C-alpha cells in the first residue's frame, strides 16, 4: 500500500492527468455515495464530486503518502460538502452535523424525495435503505458509511471527520444502535 500511496503522491505533485483519470474512475461510485450520505442530494453529490477532484488536483502537493489516499480524498470532499451546506443553510449547520442537546435525532432535510433520480433508482429495496439512512443522525450516518461501506479504520475516520477517536467510537455505537432499531422496525 505504501508504494501505491507514494506513487499517487508523486503523480499528484506532477499533476499527472493519466493518474487523475484513473483515480476519478476508481472512486466514481464510492465518492458520490459518501457525498450523498452527507448531502442527501444526488445533484449536490455530483457537483461536489467534480469540485473534490479539482481540489485534489490543486492541493495534490499536500497529500501525505503515509495516509491512505481515501482518507485524504474523503476529508477534502467533506470540507467541500460542509462549505456547501453552510452556504445553503447557515443557520442549521450545527444542527445538521450534531444532534440537539436532548439527544433526539433531527430528520435529515430531504429536498429531493421526488427527484427523477429517486424515481429512476434501482428498486424499492434501494430506496428503503436510503430512507433508513436519511433517518439517522447525520454525524452517525457519516461515520457508519465510512466504517462499513468505505471500510476505513477508526483512525482514518477520525482524520476525515476531524473528531477525536472517542467521539468517532461514540457516534459509531450510537449509529449502529439507531440503524439496528430502524431496520428492525421496517423489516
Amino acid at each position, binding site marked *: 500500500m505504501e508504494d501505491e500511496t507514494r506513487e499517487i503522491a508523486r503523480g499528484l505533485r506532477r499533476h499527472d492527468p493519466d493518474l487523475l483519470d484513473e483515480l476519478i474512475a476508481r472512486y466514481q461510485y464510492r465518492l458520490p455515495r459518501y457525498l450523498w450520505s452527507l448531502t442527501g442530494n444526488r445533484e449536490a453529490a*455530483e457537483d461536489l464530486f467534480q469540485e473534490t477532484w479539482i481540489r485534489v488536483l490543486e492541493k495534490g502537493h499536500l497529500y501525505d503518502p503515509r495516509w491512505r489516499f481515501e482518507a485524504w480524498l474523503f476529508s477534502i470532499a467533506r470540507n467541500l460538502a460542509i462549505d456547501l451546506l453552510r452556504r445553503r443553510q447557515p443557520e442549521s449547520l450545527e444542527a445538521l452535523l450534531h444532534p440537539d442537546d436532548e439527544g433526539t435525532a433531527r430528520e435529515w432535510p430531504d429536498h429531493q424525495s421526488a427527484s427523477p433520480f429517486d424515481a429512476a433508482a434501482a428498486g424499492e429495496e434501494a430506496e428503503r435503505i436510503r430512507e433508513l439512512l436519511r433517518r439517522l443522525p447525520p454525524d452517525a450516518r457519516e461515520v457508519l458509511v465510512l466504517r462499513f461501506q468505505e471500510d476505513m479504520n*477508526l483512525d482514518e475516520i477520525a482524520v476525515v471527520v476531524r473528531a477525536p477517536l472517542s467521539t468517532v*467510537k461514540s457516534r459509531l455505537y450510537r449509529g449502529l444502535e439507531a440503524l439496528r432499531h430502524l431496520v*428492525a422496525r421496517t423489516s
Partner: protein
Amino acid sequence: MNSSIHERACHLIDARHVEGIAASEREWLEAHLAECEACQARARANELALQSLRQNTVRVDPALVSTTQARVRLRAQELRENQARMRTLWMACGLSWLLGAITAPLLWQAMSWLGRHFQLAPAVCITGFAIFWFAPATVVGGLIAWRRSRAAALQNW
C-alpha cells in the same frame, strides 16, 4: 442471567463490528451466544443492519466520470501553463537581480559623477541610487501580486 454478563455481551456484539475485539473476548462471546437467545437476536439484528447499509447504492450520471476527467485535465493544463509562466518570471527576476548586482558599482559611480557635475547633495545621490536600484524589483513584485489577485478573483467568479 447476570446483568453485567449480559451487558458485557451486548457491548461485545457491537464492539466486534465497531472497533474489533480480542480473540479471548470473541471466544467468550461465542460461548455466551450459544446460550443466550436475546443476545443472538441482537447479533442477528446487527448483521441485518450492516448488510442493509452495505447494500446502499447510489446511481450516478454515466457522464459524470468523463465530464469530471475533462474538467480536471483542463485545469491541470492551466496549472502547468501557469507554472511555466511563473518559472519564466522567477528566472527573469533572478537574472535581473544578478545584472543589478553586477552593475551596482557602475551605477554608484554614475550617480557620484552626476552628483559632482550637478553639485547635488550626497543624500540626493544616495536616494536616487536607491530608487533606481529598487524600482525594477518593485515593479515586478507589484505585477506578480496583481496577477495573483486577478487569478484569485477569476477563480471566485
